[in-house]
């Protein structure tokens, strides 16, 4: 078996130059690493297969280690399509003139961030963030990734707006867990007392029975904002043929494989436009993430 593996590696590596030229015709996409990698790889390999069938071209999914890496790969034209968050999408479209948001999840029109707390803190859920000031002050707090919309941008915005202080002034310790699943695990374990995460990740983990509700609970929900979307480069038609962008858009909007949608989790995809994300852009400018 090992021999076989080595032989396969040899062959694939020896042809790497050939493969490099062939991959110029491969449609490559990526996604921000907002959840556990195993789940992402499984989900987006499914998407790659689906798109490959619909578009009749080779489609390849590239996993990346950070939000910025996803944006850079898109900007550098090493990927032509990406599943971005609100903020990363805005960053990417600013950097690549002509690129467009073409589809978003039904739930992404009104996305939310959940503030969660370890039950040992004794913080009780509230409707207004301001009423939690006493309970939250001086606690340890974790965001998700530095480039995340629901895990960083929106929670930071509301913390600043409500308490009038930077997060690292208001809390005793501020960390960046890396992704939403990890934020959930860290607060559940008590490594951080409070955290903020993507509400869809919370709901899905809750439905799957993966959350110890005795250890962690939701204490506040943000107002709705637009989030995730598929963004495509403006020059794909030149590379993959006339009307290619339209075909990708339609393929995404027509995606009705329930298992695949479930893995996002989204009930379906609907059309989106760059303008839908203007609020995100404004918020990011306000807290200095975007110039």
């Amino acid at each position: 078996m090992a021999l076989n593996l080595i032989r396969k590696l040899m062959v694939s590596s020896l042809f790497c130059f050939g493969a490099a030229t062939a991959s110029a015709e491969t449609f490559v996409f990526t996604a921000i690493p907002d959840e556990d990698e195993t789940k992402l790889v499984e989900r987006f390999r499914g998407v790659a297969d689906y798109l490959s069938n619909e578009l009749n071209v080779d489609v390849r999914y590239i996993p990346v280690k950070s939000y910025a890496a996803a944006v850079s790969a898109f900007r550098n034209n090493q990927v032509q399509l990406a599943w971005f968050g609100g903020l990363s999408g805005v960053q990417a479209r600013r950097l690549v003139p002509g690129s467009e948001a073409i589809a978003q999840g039904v739930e992404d029109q009104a996305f939310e961030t959940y503030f969660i707390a370890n039950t040992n803190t004794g913080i009780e859920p509230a409707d207004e963030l301001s009423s939690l000031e006493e309970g939250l002050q001086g606690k340890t707090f974790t965001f998700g990734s530095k480039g995340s919309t629901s895990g960083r941008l929106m929670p930071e915005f509301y913390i600043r707006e409500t308490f009038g202080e930077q997060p690292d002034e208001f809390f005793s310790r501020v960390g960046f867990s890396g992704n939403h699943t990890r934020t959930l695990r860290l607060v559940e374990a008590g490594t951080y007392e409070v955290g903020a995460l993507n509400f869809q990740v919370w709901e899905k983990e809750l439905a799957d029975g993966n959350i110890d509700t005795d250890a962690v609970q939701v204490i506040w929900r943000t107002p709705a904002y637009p989030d995730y979307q598929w963004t495509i480069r403006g020059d794909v038609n030149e590379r993959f043929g006339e009307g290619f962008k339209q075909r990708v858009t339609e393929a995404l909007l027509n995606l009705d494989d329930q298992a695949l949608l479930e893995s996002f989790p989204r009930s379906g995809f609907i059309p989106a436009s760059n303008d839908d994300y203007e609020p995100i852009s404004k918020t990011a400018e306000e807290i200095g993430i975007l110039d």
Partner: protein
Amino acid sequence: MFQSPTVRTSFIFLAIALVGLLFADIAITASNPWRDLGNFFFGVVTPNFFSNEGLMTALLRTVSFAFVGVALGSISGFLLALVYRWLPVRILCAFVRAIHELFWALIFLQFFGFHPLTGVLAIAIPYAGIFAKVYSEILEEADPEPGRLLPPRTGVISAFLYTKIPDCWVQLRTYTAYRLECGLRSSAILGFVGLPTLGFYLESAFSQGHYSDAGAMLILFYVLIATMPLWVKPKLLPAYILGAPFFLGEGLPIVWSNVGRFFTQDIVPSPLRGEEGWAGMGAWLGDMFINQAMPGIWNTVILTQVALVATGIIALLAFPLISTHFGGPVRRTSGHVFLVIMRSTPEYILAYILLQLWGPSMLPAVVALALHNGGIIGHLIGRQSSTIRLRPDAPNGLNRYTYELVPRVYRSFLAFLFYRWEIIMRETAILGILGIYTLGFYVDSAIQNIQFDRAMVLILITASLNIGVDVLGRFIRRKLALQTMPTC
């Protein structure tokens, strides 16, 4: 005893570290760190080698990147060593080696993207700087006499090949082989930023709590390094070096226009790109200095000083584990295994593991740096202590340790420690990527915000800090007349 300058220096550094400790953020924030640590060790003793189809490929990539990167670095370093006398070359080398491999990788990722070149250059460039320095030191120590005896019209190249190379060959080879081991560690951690080496899977496995998978990867990595003498044979080297480029994987094609854009736009400070021009530079730099560079430098320096002293303590405690003057063969063998594991585990991975288990603070970083570097120094002085011949009636136990051995190895211990000072600082800065507020944290944040101009300035600041500590370390070593061979 306080008359001795080495002892006095030691206590000054100890005092600085103790003061630093007052300001350092040392805490275990995880609510149940011992349970997690237990889970981790359980994972290591129940490794799962078959979890991931990519594991073998990742190992192969790790080795390939190390070979290609170290080979390129050693060739360019050798050429640079020939002109090392030239001041601009020395400055260039000091500069490129002051920037950590991971920073280089983050830079190249921005324009080469996920192409093998990113990983290869990330290793080759800093290594070239290090090779240039060490090679030139080795060549300088060659016996000059044979060169003086050559016929006057002998070509420079012939003279060099006959009189310098053979004399230095063993040292050059030993050091290069040693660097290859360092290269394997560097290559492995490049995975943490997305290159297809071991770190890529290790990070995934850890972050998802798959400790048995992570344990399997660590064990494979240790085996890979421990068996190096068996598979890195001089005769096989040409085959490895010629073959390795074919096993780097294909990655994604390079788009060359990105390279130009990176240098002409991305890293140009944003006021110069916009309408403000030079007038805006002051405010831009000032803001970055106050909000990012200053806190970053402060934390980096504190963490470095605390970790340096902790490294020293670990090294002094650990060297008897392998010294022939203590214990029997069983104890020594287990001591060797322990130290091999400590020094084979890159501090970045150790820090990552401990951060996952103990929660964020400087503590995991200090422990990781101290264990890794203490393991290396402990190994070196332990080996040295075994060459000391004690008189037959020498005392035993603690007295033997304090009266006979420590005084004899203390100078070389300090030499190694000050040699590693700069290395510890370089690592400290990089650990910021994991979320400790050292300079690396601010570099990573700038990159996450797609502000490469800021990232570059912060990387330059980090490099200058490293160069400063390097110079200071050399000054102290010269002042105390301490000599040492390079370590990595």
